[in-house]
């Protein structure tokens, strides 16, 4: 190993990565076990204790039906996580193979794939979601698919551009000379070299997937009531902002903490794995 490579290995882990990862781990755990540790039944109406401000009994207060806000937040955390990780996974599963195929075959295959991608990218992200959710009845699964599709073009373009430079290298020529199968070359030779860049992009993408997903839920096009998705909770709190601001502020702050922490992880990973990508655009 050369001195430069050693120096690179020893570069210290960015603080924001550690802090972000710690918060994300806690929130994922809370999201997973949330429904079981919630102090109250998140769907139980209690007419007598409507819109109570935060107190020892109800840490985040109660909402317009007397439901405990903290319990609802705990029960609804996994929606945001499912949207962020699920949508990113969908964009990877569709986008990465498309990018690899386009880069490997070039020619008309590349042209067809990239024209479709151009078309998808010429639609503003929220419209893709609105279009899918306007013609079908909304739900968690559809929101995840809609958000995932929005980010397919980015993954395809990125994979293709990195794969093109990998494919131009000697070890690929060697593999081709050994008459390796196409699938083997793409899977075993190209993908491992494309991976670091894709991981960084995917980790940054999770933030925007949660953002877009919760915005769609906020607009009523995600999980439906009585689900306590955080964006939906904020939307439902709007008529009571003047009397009971905690109904919307509590899930809002939780969403912000989750998003900022996930973003810290993404930015930290970028600093660690791929410093040249500093300041790349998102969309």
């Amino acid at each position, binding site marked *: 190993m050369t001195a430069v490579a050693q120096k690179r290995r020893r570069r210290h882990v960015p603080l924001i990565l550690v802090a972000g990862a710690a918060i994300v781990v806690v929130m994922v755990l809370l999201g997973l076990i949330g429904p079981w540790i919630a102090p109250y039944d998140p769907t139980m109406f209690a007419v007598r204790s409507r819109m109570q401000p935060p107190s020892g009994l109800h840490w985040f207060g109660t909402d317009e039906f007397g439901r405990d806000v903290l319990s609802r937040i705990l029960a609804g955390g996994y929606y945001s996580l499912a949207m962020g990780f699920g949508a990113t996974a969908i964009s990877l599963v569709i986008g990465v193979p498309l990018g690899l195929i386009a880069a490997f075959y070039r020619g008309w295959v590349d042209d067809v794939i990239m024209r479709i991608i151009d078309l998808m990218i010429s639609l503003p992200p929220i419209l893709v979601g609105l279009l899918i959710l306007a013609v079908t009845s909304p739900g968690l699964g559809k929101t995840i698919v809609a958000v995932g599709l929005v980010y397919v073009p980015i993954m395809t373009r990125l994979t293709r551009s990195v794969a093109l430079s990998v494919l131009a290298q000697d070890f690929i020529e060697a593999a081709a000379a050994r008459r390796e199968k196409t699938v083997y070359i793409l899977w075993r030779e190209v993908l491992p070299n494309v991976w670091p860049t894709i991981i960084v992009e995917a980790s940054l993408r999770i933030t925007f997937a949660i953002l877009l997903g919760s915005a769609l839920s906020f*607009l009523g096009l995600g999980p439906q009531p009585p689900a306590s998705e955080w964006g939906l909770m904020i939307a439902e709190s709007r008529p009571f902002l003047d009397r009971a601001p905690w109904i919307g502020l509590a899930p809002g702050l939780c969403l912000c903490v989750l998003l*900022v922490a996930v973003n810290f992880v993404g930015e930290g990973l970028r600093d660690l794995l791929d410093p040249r990508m500093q300041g790349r655009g998102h969309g």
Partner: protein
Amino acid sequence: MLVYAARRILGMVVVLFAMSAVVFAAIHLLPGSVAHMVLGEYATAEAVAALELKLGLRDPILVQYWRWLSGVLRGEFGQALSIDQPVARLIGGALERSAALGGMSLLLVAIMGIALGIHSAVHRGSLSDRVLTMMQYTLIAIPEFFWCTVAIIVFAVWLGWLPATGYTPLADAGLLQWLRHLILPVVCLSLGLTAHVSRMVRSSMLEAIESRYVLAARAKGVPERLVLLRHALPNAMLPAITVLAIDAGILIGGIVVAETVFSFPGLGSLLMYAIQNHDIPLLQAGMLVVTAVYSLATLAADLASAMLNPRIRLGAAH
């Protein structure tokens, strides 16, 4: 440059045609009949038949598409289903109000983003640079609808300085009242995007400052201020323009959300209304118009960066 511009405009027209087909197909080919979508699940067979006849839904799909598309090309978007008004008039008015909202936000984002980005780059490593960087990481990740909610609680409910919702036309109420309704949505829309743009400007400005041509300019004794303004800044602007175009797409999403929160009667509210009321002519036209606006923004950005970039301007690339 002219060839490049012509090619990009042609590309945009192709994209818009393709989008009209995609929007139309999504609404008409997906499971569930359009008539049921409009009338609800429990509509009687007679009502469904009557509506299908009225809207020409029994014709072959291509005939329907051609009828819609030829109307759009003549500027006729037809009649809205849920309100007795022509679609074109509804969309025209809404587009104007959304344009004011989006235009002001984009302007604020451009000014603030570029100024803060330059400041960070020039004072790299200083306290203000580090604070701004932390703020960028944080602000990028916070959703518009959270800012909108907080803004309403603080400025409308607690302080009572600004109206929480609604809109007053410029002609009726005068500049001040008009602005009072725009301030909160514009600021809420701008926070995240400003962080994004300032970050891009910072990194491209840093790259420019460390480049050889800036070193050369300093070496021949050009004053530092001129080095930054004349040599570094123009090159740093290229990525900023690209990122502003990307952000136009995010801004459109933000506008839909902000208009809903602030009950602002723009294109976003109209789209949401069309979705909730299953108003298909309104929905189709609204989606097409939003796509067209977005394409125009992308086109403008591409042409602007082509003009700034000699490699594209002089036709070396492409």
